[in-house]
């Protein structure tokens, strides 16, 4: 049976009717038009669907939409509205991504890391992105991109 939920998506109050069986990822993409989080492994393994829930990174394919009623979601769209942030600038400078499919999820875990720890070590960066798969880069350029962002903000 459909039920209405209210949530804040990228700073904007939204309401939407959902079935209890619907996943947060599907509701974001198909009902709210937020296409940043990607559908990939569908088992919580790859990290492509990562969003921030109340500031913490989570897998939106592992959460029912009804579970987040009244809560705050941030996706890559909400992270930069007008211009590139230092993290995005650094990703560009380091050519961090190739196909870009993992970029949205990688960005969200990097945002969480840098919020918590603005000056991480290389090991801490690797640990932070360890749940996000990238099939193009071998991760080096992404790690360098996040370390470069840390140098810009500290």
């Amino acid at each position, binding site marked *: 049976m459909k039920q209405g939920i209210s949530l804040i998506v990228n700073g904007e109050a939204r309401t939407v009717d959902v079935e209890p*069986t619907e*996943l947060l990822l599907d509701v974001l993409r198909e009902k709210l038009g937020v296409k940043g989080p990607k559908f990939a492994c*569908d088992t*919580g393994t790859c990290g492509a669907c990562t969003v921030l829930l109340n500031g*913490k990174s989570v*897998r939106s394919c592992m*959460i029912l939409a009804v579970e987040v009623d009244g809560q705050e979601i941030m996706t890559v769209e909400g992270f930069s509205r007008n211009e590139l942030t230092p993290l995005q600038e650094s990703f560009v400078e380091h050519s961090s991504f190739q196909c870009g499919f993992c970029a949205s999820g990688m960005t969200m875990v990097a945002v969480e890391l840098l919020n918590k720890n603005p000056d991480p070590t290389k090991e801490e960066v690797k*640990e932070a992105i*360890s749940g996000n798969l990238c099939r193009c880069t071998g991760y080096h350029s992404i790690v360098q991109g996040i370390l470069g962002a840390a140098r810009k903000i500290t």
Partner: protein
Amino acid sequence: MISASDFNYLKPENLNEAVKIKGEKGAAAIVLAGGGEIINRLRSGEATAETVIDLKGIGELGEIAIDKDILNIGALVTFSDILDSETIRNQFPLLWETAAAIGSVSVRNRAGEPYRDSAPALLVYDAMVMIQGPGGKNEISLSDWFIDPKKCVLADDQIVTGIKIPRPAEEYGACYLKLKRYDGQDFGQASVAIMALADKQYRIAFGSVGPLPIRAEKIEALLAGKDLDEKLIQEAVKLVPEEISPQTDIRATAEYREHMSGVMLKRGLRAAAARLTKGGPDYGTRLI
């Protein structure tokens, strides 16, 4: 849609209400906390439900509290909460070291189940699972908890409300080691939790090397009352094949699991003994 069949979603605001609903609906209701396991089981069709009871409206289940020498961890506490707890880091470092090795950040932000990779540490702490049902509250030792890889002793009308961990009476050094296929989010190919107590007793448990997590009683008996030296450690490693029954699957072969369990026991015993005397690598240091 994650499930072919519809289910209702209920989010009770207190524990009594949740217990009442689960008591009435029994197996037709599934309890949801972090969701890491349940969502995938609903998706695969391995589990079905008429009702999903979300516990996340019950604030008291999100608490970490220490009462005398007993640590209480509510059913909603995540591995990230455990890593952020100074009390756990200082007083239950083996649990902290285990939490750091679970999944990845975005898994730990949500998950907290006493299962798979976390079971060996909880076994050596002699953890109790707290449950509640129509018959009232009960506590079950984790060593009696697992029946087979997909089953535990929890009755259909009961809810897990948390875990209780008694602080060992003696000072201890400990070590958790988890072997993975690659340096990312992965379930263990093999894991071991080791505790070396000041009275020369040892507690050891293995994970992912048998149908259930195993307390290594023969090795514990061999080591009991003795100081660890390299000769004794080698004797302990020789007993590993008698304790575990690994299988071959997509993560590793049985032979590799058995060999590496011995290597991990050796390194873990050395680290636990060194940590007991305030030496050794810091908790959280990778030893494998």
